[in-house]
Every structure is written in C-alpha cells, then in structure tokens.
C-alpha cells in the first residue's frame, strides 16, 4: 500500500530530523454523525514505529486525540546519508501500513 505515509529524513551535523505525515481519519469514537445521531466508530492509529537501519528510533502510542492526518516529527543521532528509514503504523481496526525511505 504505502500510499498513506509521506516521510522525509534529513541529516545535518550528525542529527537526523524525520518528518512524516500519515493519511488517516483518526476518529475518536466520541463524535456523532450529524444526520443519524449515531456515534461514529473509533478508528485511529495506536502505534507508530520508526526504524533506522532496522533499529528502533521511536515508538509512539497514540490515542484518538491526535489530529486527523497525523504529523510526527522527531530527531535522532547517528543517521547517515542514504541510510534506510522505515515507518510503520497500526490502527485499532488492525489496519497497518509501512514505508521505507532514504536519509537525504
């Protein structure tokens, strides 16, 4: 799949900055459908893991209060140009996606 994730990693002075955007509805499960008054079922990302050359650099647990189409940015040490960065997510319905990119 891999269409849901945009990721960009850039290294400068030994510090790699990773920025990513995921396309996801992030429903809290508390919102109501305005027409029918029924609750919209919760559907949100619970787990995001980013790996650098196979080694975990961040592990996020998210709740429904993260905004729709979530954004995540963080920094880590030790990345080099052309290293592999892999981001994967899983949501509460068991859907998942992952993507790999190279550090620039």
């Amino acid at each position, binding site marked *: 799949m891999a269409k849901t994730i945009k990721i960009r990693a850039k290294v400068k002075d030994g510090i790699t900055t990773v920025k990513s955007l995921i396309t996801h509805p992030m429903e809290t499960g508390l919102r109501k459908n305005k027409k029918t008054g029924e609750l919209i079922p*919760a559907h949100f990302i619970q787990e995001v893991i980013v790996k650098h050359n196979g080694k975990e650099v961040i592990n996020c647990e998210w709740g*429904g*209060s993260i905004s729709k189409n979530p954004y995540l940015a963080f920094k880590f040490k030790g990345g080099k140009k052309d290293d592999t960065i892999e981001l994967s997510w899983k949501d509460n319905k068991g859907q998942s996606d992952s993507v790999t990119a190279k550090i620039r």
Partner: protein
Amino acid sequence: MKLNQKRRVFLKGSVAASTVGLAVGAGLLTPATVLAAWNESAFHAKSVDEAIKAAAGAPVTEPSDKITIKAPDIAENGAVVPVSVVADMDGVDSITLLVEKNATPLSAIFHLPKGTLPDVSTRVKMGKTGDVIAVVKAGGKLYSARKGVKVTIGGCGG
C-alpha cells in the same frame, strides 16, 4: 469507555470492514492483538492524574523548566493544534503528551530509545481551552510542564 461499549464499536467496525470485502476472520482477529500491546487503561483514563499514573507508572511529577512546550497561545481550530515538546535533559526514556480538558486526556506516549533526542512534534485535538501537559521520564524520574492554549473552535464533537 466501558468494555461493552467498546465491544459494540469494535463489532460495528468489523462489520464495516467485511462489507468492503475484507475477510471477516482477519478483521476479527487482528484488532485483539493490536490492543494487547497498546496501553488501553492509560488511554481510557478520564482524569489527568489517572492517565499519568497509567502511562508513566506514578501520578507524581516534578514541574521542570527544562521542558519547553511549543504550542499556539490561541488555537483557531481545536481539531489541529500543533504541539512540540523539547526537553533539555539527558537520558529521556519517554515523553507523554496530555490535553487536560479532553474526555480522555492522554494523547500520545513517545518512547525514545538511546540516541533519539527528546524533541518531538505532532498535532493534537483539543475540545476546549485548557492546558497541554508534557510529562518527561528521565532517569526514572518524572518531570512535567504545561502550557495554556485558548481554543476558539473545539475539535471534539462535530
């Protein structure tokens, strides 16, 4: 949320999944395994103290001025509030982000292995005006900081 309600939501979700052509079996099995790894009690906690306790292990945090929360003073749209947390300390294990006035305050837990800098950014939903709280776990101790954000349009509920 009570277990029963959750089950409802979950069942609805799997019915929806099956109608779009996914195997029902797969739809029913995978969410259970996802939930097992996820800190369910912490994310369903209704108060800030409960959430911190469940997420970080203890309810007591020490206010610290070494933690900087970057968030707008006034958020025009509560559905998208950009928040950055930077901690100026060593050995940070995790950063926990909470929104005080939300129905379930816990928003995110970032686990940071060694080598990852305590500097994370994301965007959160805020129901109404209140504080954003960051709890940083470093060297087995908990530190916290908060920042008030004024919300003009709520992000929870339609």
